């Protein structure tokens, strides 16, 4: 991967890492897929995914900020329905760009 990948490159990379970390076929890693209910992610898979993405993009993902961005005081069902492949991908794209923006 180039030093400064574009958004589409990042989307493809995160999709691949989700597939590998969750051990699911890449065809199932669609934006609407819920990580827990649809892809059957375990908490250890989420840790693996975060490290894979951080390592490849040389960025730090603030887990708390990411969870907060889903919304406040969510029920478990609300959290599950919002914690999707599309959410993760776009969060990474947005924050990768923000990390590299001039101050």
């Amino acid at each position, binding site marked *: 991967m180039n030093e400064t990948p574009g958004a589409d490159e990042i989307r493809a990379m995160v999709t691949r890492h989700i597939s590998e970390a969750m051990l699911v076929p890449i065809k199932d890693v669609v934006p609407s897929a819920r990580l827990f209910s649809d892809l059957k992610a*375990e*908490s*250890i898979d989420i*840790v*693996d995914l975060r*490290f*894979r993405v951080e*390592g490849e993009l040389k960025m730090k993902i603030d*887990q*708390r900020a990411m*969870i*907060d961005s*889903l919304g*406040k*005081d*969510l*029920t*478990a069902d609300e*959290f599950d329905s919002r914690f999707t492949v599309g959410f993760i991908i776009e969060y990474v794209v947005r924050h990768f760009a923000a990390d590299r923006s001039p101050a």
Partner: protein
Amino acid sequence: MVTGIGLDIVSIARIRDLFTRHGERLRNDLFSENEWAGLRQIPDAPDGGAAALAEAQVRYLSMLFAAKEAVFKAIAPPPSLAFNWRDIEIEACHPVQPRLHGELKAYADIKGIMRLSGGVCASGRHAAAVIIGETS
């Protein structure tokens, strides 16, 4: 009164793969210094880093992780709670003695959970733990 029961089973091979892939970063993210110190008491522990663990060490870490996950499930905090894996420190495995930190501890206190107890074991390919949370 029982407030929650947590059960977790983790693949030992999965934990080994993660340490091979992520090494020190995983160690620092999941385990406290005290927990890591316990690893050094296991016979034949190599002097290598987190990516070069002996089988007995991987088994031990798998049990620790299963116990942490079971404690988390027994407490069942809301998704918005700020949590990291070091907020659950496993001080002993037989029986499991967890110590809570951070917002998870505050939440358990609010919920009135006075006691978390249970067991953990590893056999063959998996480590498993069960934890019961009680108000008294």
